């Protein structure tokens, strides 16, 4: 398996998203609050994975511009979840880079009970670069 293919497969695996389900309606981009900040738009995340063009995706600004608000995940009519794709891409980068800024001991006091866990995990990935 080529590196690109391998990476695309890992994103599919981490995110649990099947990019082939996308019907290219654009509702994700329509709903995204960070749309204007992004170089690659949310609806494009899917095609980058489908086309195994992960190198560009992980180099994009969007990777770190996505707020992980999951509005796109919530509203996607096809259950494709672009927000999870970009989050998975972040994780891919994090895993490849290795090392964390926060140590595990520091985490508990930073936690707010009302914060959704998914948001926390996403935020860690986002802000640790």
């Amino acid at each position, binding site marked *: 398996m080529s590196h690109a293919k391998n990476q695309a497969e890992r994103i599919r695996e981490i995110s649990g998203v099947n990019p082939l389900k996308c019907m290219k309606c654009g509702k994700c981009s329509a709903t995204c609050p960070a749309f204007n900040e992004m170089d690659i738009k949310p609806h494009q995340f899917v095609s980058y994975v489908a086309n195994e063009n992960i190198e560009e995706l992980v180099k994009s600004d969007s990777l770190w511009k996505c707020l992980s608000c999951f509005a796109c995940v919530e509203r996607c*009519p096809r259950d494709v979840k672009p927000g999870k794709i970009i989050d998975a891409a972040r994780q891919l980068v994090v895993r490849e880079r290795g090392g964390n800024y926060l140590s595990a001991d520091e985490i508990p006091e930073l936690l707010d009970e009302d914060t959704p866990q998914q948001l926390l995990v996403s935020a860690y990935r986002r802000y640790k670069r």
Partner: protein
Amino acid sequence: MQRIGVFVCHCGSNIAATVDVKKVVEVIASEPGVVHAEDYQYMCSEAGQEKIAIAVREKKLTGIVVCSCSPRMHEATFRKAAERAGINPYMVEIANIREHCSWIHKDINEATEKAVILARAAVAKVNLNTPLTPGESRVTKRALVIGGGIAGIQTALDIADAGYKVDIVEKTPSIGGRMSQLDKTFPTLDCSACILTPKMVEAAAHENITIYTYSEVEKVSGFVGDFTVDIRKKARFIDADKCTGCGACQEKCPSKKTPSEFNRGLGTRTAIYTPFAQAIPNVPVIDTEACIKFKTGKCGLCQKICAAGAVDYTQKDEIVTEKYGAIVVATGFDTISLDKYDEYAYNQSPDVITSLELERVMNAAGPTHGHLERLSDGKAPKEIVFIQCVGSRCSDDRGKPYCSKICCMYTAKHAMLIRDKYPDVNVTVFYIDVRTPGKNFDEFYRRAVEQYGVNYVKGQVGKVIPQPNGKLLVQGSDLLDNKQILKEADMVVLATAIEPNKDVRKIATMLTASIDTNNFLTEAHAKLRPVESPTAGIFLSGVVQGPKDIPETVSQAGAAAVKVVGLLAKDKLMTNPCTAKADELLCNGCSSCANVCPYGAISYEDTLVNDHGIRETRRIAIVNSALCQGCGACTVACPSGAMDLQGFSNRQILSEVDAICR
């Protein structure tokens, strides 16, 4: 011992490419009972069927196995061929070596091996087949149409014109259905009422048509050719024979605040009402939930005002029992609930409406008398946004997985009509795909764009945000420009997905008609029998089978009518001989079988039997073969094995099991 001929079909290369048909012939020829085996290019062709006839003649065959496509495809063909060749049609079994074998396996050895086993099982079964003769049942020359929309009306008219009696049962107070709520129709833009009303009048006046409005089907029993149906005629509290339809009662009724169903809740109606001016019959009904007389005992104004003395508060529901030979389901559709689509603000803003509501707004008889205005403040909108695919093509649990089919065209129609009547109004349509297959459909859509300047944007809307200034902020994407659009609109129209009428599942259960997960009734064959239900004698007309527009509905309604007429034209029907039968020497008379029979086909009679010299009167199960549909539930409920199913007997199925596990 049977003399069995096995005929292996190549189906061109469909079978022969993955199954070594010569090998199948060679192996099967040595099976017990097989006296003849051959293969041929297309067994279903005339030449193929002739081969069967020749073999029957020359080899004195008593049983036939055809190894071919699914029995659901050609079992009937080969049974007829057998009959023509002079052997009982029920001495034929099919080994499905196409759908269940050649099409799903790639390895030729594996597929051939399996084909041989499937053929063996069929041979084993035929060895135990017995000739069966279909019974006969009579045909009641009257049809029932459930639903009085355009589908039901057209079907009824076509059946009636062919000379048969037909009854329409409609749940609401008037026939007309969804089409009566529409303003104009695509792609010709003629007025819906102008083309529908004459048909409604024609149906009402037709000597062969009886219309039961404000009525529901309550109970269905029987089977093709001989259904018995109970129809509940709900109390209207108006004597239809006396009512002149003058409308005075409705003018005087003091209870005026009930949302009008006909206007999709956008206007109100009185407690005594006819849904719309052209209603048929033009006889009002009293809504007891809203009527002051019924709620408090006081009022009675309508009775006082009625010169004909037609108002009768004591009227009761009435059950009419009628016999029918065929039943057509034409229960139509409704739009889905938008409660789960918060992002479109449908429940927050009165200026976000569905397309069906827009039809009422645009209609001269509607809540705004045909003026395009915002329902919140009555102001004329300047900017209108249409959103396509709201709830259609969704794989989540909020919407429907299918395309509702009519939305692209009616949205083009709405956009065009608005631009035509109000050229100063900007119309934007957010679409995913524009689907316009149909005669003059794409031309129609192009006119909306090219001639009327409707702004089509490829992309979905993510959110509609009501603004403090009363405007609606629409946030959508333009995928072609790769932009996010923010647009202030005065009105947003949602092309809401359609779904089968809520009552259809209940009706399908009564009719034992199959229904799919989306609540559309299943057709007997998706391509070859699109207007028939797999349940004999039940036919489908209109959206109950799947989304369709008016021209399609009318064609399908006609097709369903032809099928009904074809059935009613027969004096007698052949019944399926694969029915249950009790062995009187084994039957205990325990009633287990009758308990599980869905058709009430089993009764018990005290019968004098001669059990190996012992003569005694026993309680024995008797199956009415006209009622029995051959499901076999009774055969398993029977502890003694007395009950068996002809054509699928215990020994036949066991022999198949043995052949497969050998």
